[in-house]
């Protein structure tokens, strides 16, 4: 399982490195969204508004959906599914590998978004640094949940436009917990309580993914 996970993660990351889709398409979109969010707040409120964490995670949601769809599209090209299916890869390993690659990609984008939030939403740099662990874990859970729901939409040959609709209920509690954690890091409050919720969600999604990913792929 671990060997398969490593193979799949390395393959997905290599494809991203080659295609530069994250660099030239998703990153500019993410930064432009942050700029628009900053403009929506207005120059007077940007630095002090408590909306900044929510706007940060709203952009994270858009970015996560793009990256999850991109990850699934790698596997769902005509013929690729059949070719790769004949490799008989361990589905739990595929799930872990795709989740790992997605997590690393989202970490990179999350870091850029945090820096962008300091620049465009004028959040405090020290608060952004304090929020790094909670943001990292939240993005990790979104990756694992996104991998599961991505397989649900393409494995069942449902339209990929279903992905945002299906993932939103899964992402919503994570976004709330992440937003509260970021708020606590920026403005004070109970940081660890929300952080623990996200960690529990991570464990749950990893367990569910390992157990059901094969079924979703076969469906």
């Amino acid at each position: 399982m671990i060997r398969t996970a490593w193979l799949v993660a390395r393959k997905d990351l290599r494809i991203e490195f080659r295609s530069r889709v994250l660099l030239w398409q998703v990153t500019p979109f993410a930064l432009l969204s942050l700029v628009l969010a900053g403009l929506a707040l207005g120059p007077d409120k940007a630095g002090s508004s408590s909306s900044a964490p929510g706007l940060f995670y709203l952009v994270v949601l858009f970015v996560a959906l793009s990256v999850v769809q991109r990850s699934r599209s790698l596997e769902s090209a005509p013929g690729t599914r059949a070719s790769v299916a004949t490799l008989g890869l361990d589905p739990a390993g595929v799930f872990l590998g795709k989740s790992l690659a997605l997590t690393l990609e989202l970490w990179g984008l999350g870091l850029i978004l945090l820096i962008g939030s300091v620049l465009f939403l004028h959040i405090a740099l020290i608060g952004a640094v304090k929020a790094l662990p909670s943001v990292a874990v939240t993005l990790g859970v979104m990756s694992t949940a996104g991998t599961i729901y991505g397989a649900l939409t393409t494995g069942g040959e449902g339209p990929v436009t279903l992905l945002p609709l299906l993932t939103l209920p899964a992402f919503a509690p994570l976004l709330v917990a992440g937003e509260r954690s970021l708020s606590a890091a920026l403005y004070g409050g109970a940081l660890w309580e929300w952080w623990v919720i996200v960690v529990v969600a991570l464990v749950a999604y990893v367990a569910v993914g390992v157990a059901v990913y094969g079924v979703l792929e076969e469906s």
Partner: protein
Amino acid sequence: MSGSFPLLAGLTFCAQPGTLVVLRGGNGAGKTSALRLLGGLERLNGGSGRVLDIDLSSGDRRGLRRRVGWMGHEGSFYEDLTVRENLEFAARSLGRPVEDIDPALERVGLGHRRSTPTRQLSAGQRRRLALGWILVRRPELWLLDEPHAALDRSARDLVDQLVLDALSVGVTVVVSAHDQLDARLAPDQVLVLSGGRVVEES
């Protein structure tokens, strides 16, 4: 079965190791469905079947797939990986030696293309890559879906020679085709399909 009508019905045949079976028929006759079923890519919803001693209804379909070489219409791979990287992924997934990759690429005429991203390959070159994928994997059963489609004369000869080589070492080959195969390939069985049924057998 799919929806309310069977994709295949009344398809009965037995292929011995090292034999060539040809499935012939027009578009929609059920050739590809039959191949996918044999490769464990589709679930058997009725009837019974065993491939490489694995039951198609209740057996380990993932285990079956690992022992099957598949060449579909599309010959699709990871577009942003190079030719060699695609084969390396297949070899490592199955625990095959990566040293086999370069000889396989030379064999299928893609030795000079090993560092080319797959998206830059022509349709014929993709089919050659699919053959290289099979050679690296060394499967016990080859399932070739219209292997001559989109190929020039030399590539068709290459396919035929590789099939002959595989048969000579005891690999079973099942091929779907619209038309007659090259005279060099003498099938042990020919099943003509129409509407998911065998209408002629020889």
